[in-house]
């Protein structure tokens, strides 16, 4: 059976995430990142940030949840059980600080079959409360045995 490609080009409405200091600390601690700009407001402000600033890969925390409804969309029709995360790209814009409200919208860029595997590529675009882009993510999921 050929792979289902109905979802190519489909866009999903934005989901929002409210960035908080303690969540940034929790993420930085898990990664062993110790720069005080992620922990102390004074250090962050001294470095020119509005508030405690997120490490770049905190992008997964605010943009990842937007993909939940995408991956379970029947139009995508993905077999979760056989899915692996194959590749990831992030391109960063404005820094993300505590107090920011980030809106992330999603789009299906491509669905292709190659060597018996399905390659599903999605894009997320995250903007802050001033409508400035903070990160653009490209998520490649591979499903074995389509």
């Amino acid at each position, binding site marked *: 059976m050929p792979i289902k490609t109905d979802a190519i080009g489909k866009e999903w409405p934005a989901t929002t995430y409210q960035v908080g200091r303690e*969540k940034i600390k*929790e*993420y930085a*601690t*898990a*990664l*062993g*990142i110790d*720069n005080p*700009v*992620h922990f102390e407001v004074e250090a962050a402000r001294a470095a020119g940030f509005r508030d405690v*600033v*997120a*490490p*770049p*890969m905190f992008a*997964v*925390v605010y943009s*990842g*949840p937007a993909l939940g409804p995408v991956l379970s969309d029947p139009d995508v029709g993905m077999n979760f059980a056989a899915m*692996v*995360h*194959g*590749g*990831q*790209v*992030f*391109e*960063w814009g404005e*820094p993300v600080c505590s107090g920011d409200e980030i809106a992330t919208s999603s789009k299906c860029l491509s669905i292709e079959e190659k060597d018996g595997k399905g390659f599903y590529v999605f894009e997320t675009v995250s903007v802050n409360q001033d409508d400035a882009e903070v990160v653009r993510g490209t998520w490649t999921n591979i499903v074995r045995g389509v």
Partner: protein
Amino acid sequence: MSDLNVGDAVPELSVTPDKYLPHRYAGASGDFNPIHIDDEFAKAVGLPRNILHGLYSMGLVAKANAAIAGGDPCSLKRLSVQFRGMGMPEQEIVVSGTVKSADGDRVVVDTVAQQGETAIIKNAEAEVQL
């Protein structure tokens, strides 16, 4: 101009995630997929044990590259990775990189994350503003 030239190795980052790291990362990231936090579940679906989150390993690659610019969170402009071998808790991860191109204060670093002989992230390309 930066002090980094094409072909230069950047400082290595070595981390040995402890047994409970996947649980802390699950909490921090919100990804509670049982293959990362439930050893019995992971074995039941054919894995050797519970495995690290790929995006945790990518986080280490990001950390190693931001460190080139003194840990400045705004220094990392772009990071592209491919997930390959599975990362395991309680085994050392070594992130190493080589400068692929340099344009003024902007460098592109080819990066790999290894556990022993296994590349858990390969073909990673980081664009860093120094």
